[in-house]
């Protein structure tokens, strides 16, 4: 479709073209404008659970990943009020799990960490929950460290929608929600998980980790060490 035929909405004053069926974040990303997000991934149907991408549409707050773009909408995103709320949401994700960035092999490649830097989160602020989440190291090539799970369900969706499997699922409710794997033993080794699965490469944080390559790239030379997450090209979305 010809670019100048596209209708537009404004995002923080800037006109953003969109095509029918695009949500606000999809159109914004296509136009190279960053809206913080964690559970959204360009290759998957928008989910709307992390709420990091919350924007104001004509003054009303909504998740930009699930809100369909319409002509002439006035969307605000990069404003103090919303960034304060996003920071609080990030802090919630940090205290909900057990995140020790300095010792995490995903440090520097982690979207949660990078988004926290982006939004200048200086402390976890809230009281930690310190949940008891055992690590699953049963699989010969992959490790599951549930301590870092933010319940974005990208692995659930990737396994189901791309891999045609159901390696991952969510169980529990509320603060007890947690990721499970599809095996009676509850162990990854007893599932049909494979290193070639999309689900093996989709985790935005450090839950699904390939063994024996943890620190192959030194800290300081990793993806978000080079450039903040807001300046990263979309093609690198799926590290």
């Amino acid at each position, binding site marked *: 479709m010809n670019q100048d035929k596209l209708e537009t909405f404004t995002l923080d004053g800037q006109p953003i073209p969109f095509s029918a069926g695009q949500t606000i974040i999809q159109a914004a990303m296509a136009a190279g404008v960053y809206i913080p997000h964690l559970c959204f991934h360009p290759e998957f149907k*928008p989910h*709307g*659970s*992390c*709420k*990091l991408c*919350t924007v104001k549409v004509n003054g009303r*707050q909504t*998740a930009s990943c*699930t809100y369909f773009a319409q002509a002439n909408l006035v969307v605000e995103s990069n404003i103090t009020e919303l960034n304060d*709320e996003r920071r*609080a*949401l990030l802090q*919630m*994700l940090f*205290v*909900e799990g057990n995140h020790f960035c300095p010792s995490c092999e995903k440090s520097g490649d982690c979207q949660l960490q990078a988004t926290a830097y982006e939004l200048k989160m200086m402390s976890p602020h*809230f*009281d930690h*929950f310190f949940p008891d989440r055992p690590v699953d190291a049963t699989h010969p090539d992959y490790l599951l460290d549930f301590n870092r799970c*933010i*319940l974005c369900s990208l692995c659930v969706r990737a396994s189901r929608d791309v891999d045609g499997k*159901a*390696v*991952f*699922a*969510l*169980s*529990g*409710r*509320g*603060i*007890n*929600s947690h990721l*499970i*794997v*599809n*095996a*009676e033993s509850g162990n990854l080794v007893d599932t049909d998980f494979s290193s070639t699965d999309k689900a093996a490469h989709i985790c935005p944080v450090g839950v699904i980790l390939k063994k024996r390559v943890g620190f192959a790239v030194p800290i300081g030379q990793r993806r978000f060490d080079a450039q903040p997450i807001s300046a990263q090209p979309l093609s690198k979305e799926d590290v």
Partner: protein
Amino acid sequence: MASQIHAAYLDPILTRYQHNPHHLLQILREAQEYFGYIHTDAMGYLSQQLSLPRAKIAGVAGFYSFLSDRPQGEYRVLFSDNITDRMLGSVDLMTQFCAQLWVEAGKVSEDGLLSVATTSCTGLCDQGPAMLVNNIAINRLTPERTTAIAELIRERVPVSAWPALFFAIEDNIQRKDILLNGEFQSGTALAALLQCGDEAILREIQVSKLRGRGGAGFSTGKKWEFCRDAQGDAHYVVCNADEGEPGTFKDRVLLNRYADQVFEGMTLCARVIGAKLGFLYLRGEYRYLLAHLQVVLQQRRSQNLLGKSILGQADFDFDIDIHLGAGAYVCGEESALIESLEGKRGTPRNRPPFPVTNGYLNQPTVVNNVETFAAASLIALKGGEWYASIGTAVSSGTKILSVSGDCARPGLYEYPFGVTVGQVLADCGAQDTQAVQISGASGICLAPAEFNRQIAFEDIPTAGALMVFDQSRDMFEVARNFVHFFAHESCGFCTPCRVGTSLLANMMDKLAQGHGSPYDFAEIEKLNTLLQSTSHCGLGHAACNPVLDTIAKFRPAYQKRLIHHEFVPAFDLDHALLQARQMTGRDDSGAHLERSDESR
């Protein structure tokens, strides 16, 4: 071998549900009812028989409070934990009960005889404190009654042989108006429909200005019209009887005594929108109503008011299935309810699209409240104009209120819309009233200066709960109970509600435990604002209401808990040593932090 045991009881269940994975929740519920819990082998067998991933089954089982993948007691005792139960002494009763049976709340007794825990409001606030034993409701608990129950359990008397008096749930209808007064005759509304045509009935519903009775108040006529006009392979009617809002119990009575009228309303809707199948989604807490409701459905089938060619109309086929919930308040939200009907975790969907176009199995679906369907039958009989003449200009008809708490005559009160809160309080015999919580935990808390306000969509919209608190009550504790309710019932889908409701509950506990300071107060307010603005569904949006309302109107209840001027951590260092003290069997001053300081 092991799986044969499970196949033996699962096969008939699977057959009854045609091995349909959309009925997973019903299958799990029945499996649990039979075996006591969902055994790992049962899960494996279901996975194979339903061609569903095991993790998906485990995920569904893990979502609902009444399902368990671990052995429960032979007797599963759940004390209803609404604030009204607490006000009637449920906390002490549970403590006494646990002591009598040597069991710890939240755990299974060592001999596997019983487990005791709390559960969200069971809808018996007018006759509490209440409990569920193996999912069957018992009302009016007293120390004598719980002692008798403890004795029956100790002697392993089957629940079916317990005194019938324990299970005598009362209707407690205190004030009747057009709906509760009308002596509805089965089939009369359908006869009216067939006489004037479904187009005319839809018009009557629209003229009546009937609005949804679940609280949101969407126009019923519009909803039916939108659904009728929506393209789909099939249309569905769903009656939302997942009455989980703390303090609400009107649907319990409507289904117990007016079920025919409700089912007839559903059948009218089916004719208008062109549905062949409908569901009554009944909350798991009302499991004891199931047999009665099945009888009513069967009667209607034998009267040719349900089934094939209803009242001889060749093109009029409709039937109703009853689906039971399994302990999840969030399933009262219509899109979560539909997910649950489809056998999934009860997570609210992204909307739009709305159920009228994309509901059950992604087909056009009307979801209405029990009371809405009952009112629809009445309108079909008596006409829309008549109905619209009752109530106020924008809130036509009547509203049934579930009144409980500090009043002489709790129960159901039906009023034309526009009645003042003060009138209701006078009628129910409330004295010395400090506050009224309307529409449950997610509703609004009123102080005496507001008792002249009206129950109406234009003033105070409500799903029907009205809880009364007299001057002796601590409104902070009321709010704290509601906050814990929301934390327990959050589905966990979105970050703000999943984490925020638990943070909020912890902060309220911190205040209750005497560690509060003005800092915490400001934090509570901030958290509430975040919940309100970023949550995925109404549960998260509403979770802040009780706190924001009580802060605004009953600030002294909070103020007296802000005992420290400076921030004090919730983490209690001395308490943290408790486990170490228990393990070493020490309790001397050297094993305590503060006391050891003092002794020096």
